[in-house]
């Protein structure tokens, strides 16, 4: 069969579907971090809010990276619908624990796409995702370090204020 379709699309169609799912996930993460920034602002954690505003931008950049990859490979990127964003947290620790849960979910989803791309010999997609795999190691590590710092500092007395001040370190990194 003449390869008109293959000439138009450089990746496997299942990879395109999974990457569209990932676009949605990154958009959801971006919106979730915006909700966390909002909570931090309202509860006096202004440095943490700054941290989450930066995370929001990063997640959107990830989303756009995938979006543009699909355009470059001849695919059909779908602008995602985002709903079900949680705005309620019991403490600053709860906020960062939720953030870690998000990052773990994103990491697992990326690994799943890598596995599927590998199984279908879609080397283009597999290689494209190399950057994301390493980026997720960094993202998870950042949040884990913050949670360790929260644990060490404690939430009593001036602990909360100290926690918020310490977040600055991870914004500059």
């Amino acid at each position: 069969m003449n390869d008109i379709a293959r000439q138009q699309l450089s990746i496997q169609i299942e990879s395109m579907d999974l990457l569209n799912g990932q676009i949605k996930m990154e958009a959801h993460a971006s919106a979730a971090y915006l909700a966390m920034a909002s909570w931090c602002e309202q509860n006096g954690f202004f440095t943490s809010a700054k941290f989450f505003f930066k995370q929001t931008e990063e997640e959107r950049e990830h989303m756009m990276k995938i979006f543009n990859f699909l355009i470059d490979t001849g695919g059909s990127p779908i602008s995602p619908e985002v709903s079900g964003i949680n705005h309620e947290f019991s403490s600053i620790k709860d906020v960062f624990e939720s953030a870690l849960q998000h990052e773990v979910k994103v990491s697992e989803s990326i690994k799943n796409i890598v596995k599927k791309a590998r199984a279908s010999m879609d080397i283009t997609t597999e290689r494209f995702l190399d950057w994301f795999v390493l980026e997720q190691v960094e993202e998870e590590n950042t949040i884990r370090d913050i949670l360790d710092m929260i644990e060490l500092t404690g939430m009593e007395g001036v602990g909360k204020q100290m926690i918020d001040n310490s977040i600055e370190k991870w914004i500059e990194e």
Partner: protein
Amino acid sequence: MLVANTKYCSLRQDASNRFFYLHLGHKSIPLRFCELLAVREKILSLEMASLFYEESCPHDFKILTLCNQQHLVLLTIEEILDLRELLLQAFVRMGLSCARESVYI
């Protein structure tokens, strides 16, 4: 050249003008590749279970617009399932899918 066919529909490609032709029995729709991707997205993203609820599909058929609203098609649930099968088959035949089942999210 025939790419794939099922009970109610078929997909052909014409290498001379690089168009695909989706035949839906009563209607033939010329498609560029990007439009074929859009049709695939529209059909596979239909929530199958909801087709069986009256609010979503009250008369056992669904009206869909295709190709930037250039085409209006009326399909029964059976025809939608058949078209879904055709699209899955077609991408396997074109070498762009090795999965029998869609991983569509």
